[in-house]
């Protein structure tokens, strides 16, 4: 009789998830790993976590960032955390998490919010989202460059303020890409994707700078490796596309702005802290450079009374580089898969080499 009921029990419960078994029958189920998700993320990724059957998912189910205390509570004893770039995963967070933490999966390609040394020390694996967001981010950077160079937000304001009276030959003239020199600071995946999109606009020359030349990558756009000073002097369009590191922190400052052309357009879609914002304000307001477009600032959001927001020749976007429906959905799936792989000791689709 006992055997029969055990067999029946097995047959009945075969298709139920471990968590359901545990709940319905009060039986001990395979130990679920604790996962903390720090924000509401696109459904596709979240479903992957829930349906995996290996984790017990806790979530800060909001569009706003998780407050620090809630983050510390949620991460305590967690095996895995799925976070956004708004969470600083530093020593305190890692200590609070404890020894169980095996994987951090970030919903971004940037990882300047992660204390990499501390993470490495503890043998924690990190997943991130390169490649899947390259197209959307390169596209947004070009959108920002064109909006800045061709003065689109200014033009829209003019119309709304009833200043558009008629077609005028010299009204709202901007700077075109035809026959220009474009300088890319940091010719990585995104930098190359940006340059590739600019090529058919008639760019005459591509320059790039970084830690070392990348001839194989640069060949596609016939890019010339130059020191940063030369890039600043010769470029009609300067585009920042590098990671934020101790070496690039505050890289673009008054020294470099002073070398740039008066007609130059400056674009940053990498990280805000690569630019000295006070120096940028000075360069823009004194006509040292023609215009700037920023998708990233320091801090984010930029306070409403920040002087850069008052300049007609400065376009500021609220960090929307990868913001397309398709890309954010793909990022959520990749982030979930990175996390699950980290929990089960398998190969991650995109692991950050520490």
């Amino acid at each position, binding site marked *: 009789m006992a055997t029969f009921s055990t067999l029946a029990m097995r047959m009945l419960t075969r298709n139920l998830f471990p968590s359901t078994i545990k709940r319905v029958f009060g039986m001990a189920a395979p130990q679920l790993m604790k996962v903390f998700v720090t924000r509401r993320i696109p459904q596709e990724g979240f479903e992957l976590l829930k349906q995996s059957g290996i984790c017990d998912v806790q979530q800060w189910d909001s569009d706003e960032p998780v407050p620090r205390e809630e983050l510390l509570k949620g991460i305590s004893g967690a095996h895995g955390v799925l976070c956004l770039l708004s969470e600083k995963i530093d020593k305190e967070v890692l200590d609070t998490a404890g020894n169980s933490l095996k994987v951090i999966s970030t919903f971004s390609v940037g990882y300047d919010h992660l204390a990499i040394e501390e993470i490495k020390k503890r043998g924690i694996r990190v997943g991130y989202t390169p490649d899947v967001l390259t197209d959307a981010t390169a596209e947004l950077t070009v959108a920002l460059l064109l909006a800045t160079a061709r003065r689109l937000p200014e033009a829209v304001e003019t119309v709304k303020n009833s200043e558009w009276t008629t077609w005028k030959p010299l009204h709202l003239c*901007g700077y075109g890409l035809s026959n220009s020199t474009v300088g890319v600071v940091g010719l990585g995946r995104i930098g190359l994707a940006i340059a590739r999109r600019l090529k058919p606009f008639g760019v005459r020359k591509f320059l790039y700078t970084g830690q070392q030349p990348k001839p194989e990558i640069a060949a596609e756009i016939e890019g010339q490796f130059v020191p940063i000073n030369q890039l600043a002097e010769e470029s009609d369009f300067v585009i920042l596309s590098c990671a934020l590191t101790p070496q690039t922190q505050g890289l673009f400052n008054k020294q470099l702005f002073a070398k740039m052309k008066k007609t130059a357009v400056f674009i940053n879609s990498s990280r805000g802290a690569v630019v000295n914002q006070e120096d940028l304000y000075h360069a823009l307001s004194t006509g040292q450079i023609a215009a700037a477009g920023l998708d990233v600032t320091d801090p984010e959001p930029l306070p409403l009374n920040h002087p850069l927001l008052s300049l007609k020749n400065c376009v500021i976007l609220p960090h929307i580089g990868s913001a397309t429906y398709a890309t954010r959905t793909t990022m959520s799936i990749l982030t979930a898969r990175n996390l699950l792989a980290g929990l089960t000791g398998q190969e991650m689709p995109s692991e950050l080499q520490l």
Partner: protein
Amino acid sequence: MWGRLRSGLTKAHVSEFRTWAKLETMQRVMQELPRVYVTRRVPPAGMKILKQSGMCHIEQWDSDDPVPRQELFKRVSGIDGLFCVLTEKIDAELLDAAGPKLKVVSTMSVGYDHLSLDELRKRGIRVGYTPDVLTNAVAELTISLLLATSRRIVEAADEAKNGGWGTWRTMWLCGYELSHSTVGILGLGRIGVAIAERLKPFGVRKFIYTDAGPRPELANKVEAEYVSLDILAKESDFLIVCCALTAETQEICNSSMFSKMKNTAIFINTSRGGVVNQDDLYKALSSGQIAGAGLDVTVPEPLPTSHPLFKLKNCTILPHIASATYSTRNAMSALAANNVLAALKDEAMPKELKL
């Protein structure tokens, strides 16, 4: 001493007389020179060419605003050449006012819907315009507008200024990307091809186009497939209008077309406002029949700020700035000037519109 003074004075008189005579001669010569009227303050490159030619007497409405119609009628009387911009209607009435000496109308634009071609042809007046020199700038602005619309640039810039920008959020201000999309071009001419060439590296999967008939030479440059207007509407993720305004294309973009489009589609017009039925566009945008629209041209221009299209977050309107780069506007001005001078000399014009 008095003798020397008297001869000095005489010399001065003579020299003054000679200068005065020269001036008189010059004035007479100038008055015999062909007369050119320039209807606006135009970029310096063109004025320089006209002045340095020494070939014509130039009068100009030296203002950033259009010359009033009545004033224009007065000023064109008896002229040989007219250098105009697209705000002047060159019709029978105006041509009558100008009189029989008028041999050339040179417009600083590639569009010529403001010119009565029949009337010009009847009177044997030659027409110059400015194709090619503005193709790059216009294609560039069209793509700027497309990206501004699909990636919600203006909306986003506003959020950064009005306090809407909180912290990074996963689905906030998401737009539609060009990767794997189908781009449809209504009117595949020079500008249409230039647009397609620039969109290619954004990962567009397919280019389709419609036109009065297939245009294989142009289409092959960008591997675009010829389709009907219906198919263009149904299949395009991005529909870009690049055709001239003619009787056939007047309001070709109307409710019939919009109703066939995808509700994720982006509609862009940098050709002429008259190609679009603006009421139908408003309905399509406000009901979610299409996702967004970007317009560089409207009816009228300027569009009154009370127009309902301005109320829509998913509609971006620019004040007709497609060719507005310093180098392009100067090139247009120079070309229009050279067109005038060539016609005055009865020579081949750099860019003549075949009537």
